[in-house]
């Protein structure tokens, strides 16, 4: 019994990081109807960003999240102007492909610089031991940081002018423009925030697990699952759904081989998608 509990706590902790990653995807998708396929590559860049910063400034790794977020915002603006701005309003295929093209370029450059060998951020916080089980200090800290960032985003969207503008554009772009909101600026800002969220989740993951430039792909897949479970354009919903997904993983693993988890997860994903195309929380929050 204690084994299941421990497993669920482990799942809950990692789930909040899945949630943070998915928030970025969900925000961009909801606001501008773009499925951002640079997501995984940006998560990987977040990992390497943390790696580089930590090598230069070996302080508490979680303090370094701030510069990663700042760099993520700039990167987001850059990607927006290179690949996204020109395809807004065109078919969904265009933005899928243009972001995928950027994804290939990032992975290509990353491979040339770092090869595909695994890297580590050697920073360890002390864990908490309960009975035979020890909960890793980094996992606790990363989960905490993910929740804080998630709540900060929610505050930003509901309590600040630019945040409200983002929500207005997401609801109805034409009406927002009539109200004098420059939709281009708002879209660029939303995209940048989405990228910064992805980068920050990558930075958190880098303190937990070793990573390569290709590691982002797996988290991108998880982000899709989480986003669909939560419904589009609901960043806080994504955070909650991420935590739930982690809990589910934790609750199931004691009973079956871990290699079956992807089948359950993606099977569930397809079924939910077909049964509730607007997300499980659609009714609750709409």
């Amino acid at each position, binding site marked *: 019994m204690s084994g299941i509990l421990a*497993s669920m706590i482990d*799942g809950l902790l990692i789930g909040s990081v899945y949630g943070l990653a998915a928030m970025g995807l969900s925000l961009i998708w909801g606001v501008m109807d773009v499925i951002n396929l640079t997501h995984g590559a940006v998560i990987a860049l977040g990992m390497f960003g943390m790696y580089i910063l930590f090598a230069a400034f070996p302080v508490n790794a979680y303090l370094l999240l701030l510069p990663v977020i700042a760099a993520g915002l700039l990167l987001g603006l850059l990607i927006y102007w290179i690949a996204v701005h020109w395809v807004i309003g065109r078919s969904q295929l265009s933005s899928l492909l243009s972001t995928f093209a950027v994804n290939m370029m990032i992975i290509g450059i990353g491979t040339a610089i770092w090869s*595909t060998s*695994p890297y580590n951020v050697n920073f360890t916080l002390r864990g908490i031991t309960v009975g035979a089980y020890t909960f890793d200090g980094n996992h606790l800290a990363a989960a905490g940081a993910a929740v804080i960032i998630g709540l900060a985003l929610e505050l930003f969207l509901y309590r600040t002018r630019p945040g409200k503008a983002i929500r207005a554009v997401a609801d109805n772009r034409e009406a927002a423009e009539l109200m004098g909101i420059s939709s281009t600026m708002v879209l660029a800002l939303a995209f940048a925030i989405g990228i910064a969220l992805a980068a920050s989740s990558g930075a958190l993951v880098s303190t937990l697990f070793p990573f390569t430039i290709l590691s982002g792909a797996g988290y991108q897949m998880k982000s899709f699952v989480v986003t669909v479970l939560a419904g589009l354009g609901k960043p806080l919903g994504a955070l909650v759904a991420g935590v739930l997904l982690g809990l589910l993983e934790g609750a199931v693993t004691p009973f079956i081989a871990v290699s079956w988890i992807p089948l359950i997860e993606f099977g569930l994903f397809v079924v939910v998608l077909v049964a509730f195309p607007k997300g499980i929380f659609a009714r609750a929050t709409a």
Partner: protein
Amino acid sequence: MKRLVLAVFVLVALFVTTGFAQTLTVGFTVSNTGSMNVDSVEQLHGFELWRDQVNAAGGIKAGGKNYKIQFVSYDDESNSKRVQQLYSRLILQDKADFLFSPYSSPLTATAAIVTEQYEKVMLTTGAAEGKTYTLGNHYLFQMFTPGAEYLKGVLDMLKTKDPKAAVAFVYEDSSFSVSVVNPAKAYAQQLGFNVAFSEAYAPNTTDFSAIIDKVIASKSTVLLGGGHYADGSTLARQVYSHKVPLKMVTLLVAPDSPKWGELGDAAVGVIVPSQWEPQTAFKAQYGPSGADFAKAYAGKYNTPPSYESAGGYACGLVLQRAIEQAGGPDTAKVAAALNATDITTFYGRTKFSTAANEHGLQVGHAMVLAQWQKDKSGALVKQVVWPLAAKSANLVYPIH
């Protein structure tokens, strides 16, 4: 006039007998990118050191001629999809005389289909899985001890230390690890161990917490398994940070890499079944001694050799000897010389099976066990702990 004729005659005679240095092309693919990158590049360094030393000595001398070695290689991206395209290219376009294998069992098995078709000799290293050799090949020769042998030594050693140990197998679901663990599980039961837990994980796993929780719940005292570098190093870290009460951890492949020391405290006590360690002092009948190889390698690459590197170098050495014995690079003669090979080099004994149902399988080479230990100054070093005859330090058991 006479003198001049004589001089020319002598010169020509010299030329004919010593020969111009001809060039032999050896082809292979390397995983410059992808999941096998670390191990594959170590193997490549072994190949390269051999080539450089042979060429510096004037080439391979066989049948009165000198053959310099040149390499042609491509990136296989750790993916078997392009391996056949690239090996065909190596054979047909680049006119490779001999081939070395890619790193890892699946890539090697895929490449073997092509090399066998063209009846080209391929020495395989970094590929321990044995199934490939039962498929009816004639020109494939394995340098590594096959997978079924990897964990036998550990279980024998454990039997002497702690026959009541509860064993957990946690291993990568890849052809190599499965070919290691399945026979090991049977052997453990045969030795009377309690196999308390056994589970395979997907090759790209980074989060082991679920499996670790299950290992704790199973009350296992010994963990055997792993796969390659990326997953093995991660597993060791997380076992350490979750403070799993284990008396012994043995992982495949990963702990042999010199990079393992970077794990710090998580590295301590971990055991690896190894094809070769610098401390194993085999009396080399051919080629350099182990110490000379390790020194030359460290001089060139600023890191001690792993067994992948040693396997790569030994691969070249065995080919070199076979060419010398065959009196030239003729494929059929070299294959015959390889069939007859039974030699001890710095890497240990090498002998290939000539039985029809397992032709080319390595049957001469034996493995050792190495454990990461702290020396007196507190630095992490890899010590040979088994077999007892070859040990450089005593086994630390239990670890904590």
